[in-house]
């Protein structure tokens, strides 16, 4: 993902490009689980609101992208262990998915995407007739 430079963001004042922290994009930490009928992708995206979240499924690829609004801070940091940033990750899924049935939910900074398997690949119980 391309991040704009400090000069594009703020305009070069008096011809001087003052470096500010450029926005960072992280690969969110995920869990992926499978049941008989579906896959579930759970991604940690702290700070992302539903209005700044995009979930896309195209040609077997799930893309999740969330943007974080970083509040303006002039105070000096006393302890700095992380830099807030956006989240983006692409997952290739090699199994057939029922794209119309995909459901995404965002709760407490965690995104959960349910990808139902296409009916043709779901396991089917075959009834046995007794004679």
């Amino acid at each position, binding site marked *: 993902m391309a991040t704009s430079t*400090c000069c594009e963001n703020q305009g070069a004042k008096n011809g001087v490009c003052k*470096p*500010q*922290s*450029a926005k*960072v*994009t*992280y*690969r969110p*930490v*995920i*869990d*992926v*689980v*499978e*049941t*008989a009928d579906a*896959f*579930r992708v*759970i991604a*940690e*995206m*702290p*700070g*992302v*609101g539903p209005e700044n979240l995009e979930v896309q499924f195209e040609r077997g690829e799930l893309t999740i992208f969330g943007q974080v609004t970083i509040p303006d*801070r*002039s*105070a*000096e*940091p*006393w*302890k*700095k*262990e*992380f*830099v*807030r*940033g956006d989240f983006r990750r*692409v*997952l*290739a*899924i*090699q*199994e057939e998915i029922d794209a119309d049935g995909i459901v995404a939910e*965002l709760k*407490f*900074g*965690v995104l959960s995407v349910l990808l139902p398997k296409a009916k043709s690949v779901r396991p089917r119980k075959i009834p046995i007739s007794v004679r």
Partner: protein
Amino acid sequence: MRTTRWPFEAMGADVNRLHDEMNRLISRCGFDLVTPAAFPRTNVWVDAENVHVECELPGVKPEELEIELLGDQELLLKGKRERGYGEEVVWHKRERDLRPFERTFELPVAVDGDQVKAEFNHGVLMITLPKRAEAKARKIVIKG
């Protein structure tokens, strides 16, 4: 037991870490210095009136988190997170660390415990702790 297939990209945790580290290096284009740390990762900064504490706690429900002020210059964060995916699942990726956590850290100045405010916003916790009067900078008037 079902056999595990890998229909998802074969990127390991190492690649993720490398990516994050690269990002952090880039972010140092300013004068940001980041110290890797225990969970939850925390930023603390101070302005004229308050001490601000910011923590990333994705997946933690407000009722699962305990915030305690020990004395007037130490903060305790304690909590747990649930996975709850059901028992009958096949794992393809397991990167999330959902162990219970507890972390204590010192604050830069003494704070007024009665006025502390905490806000949870999409998995980011923000605690605002007003400085005690004696910890605030005072302007000294010079007599002419």
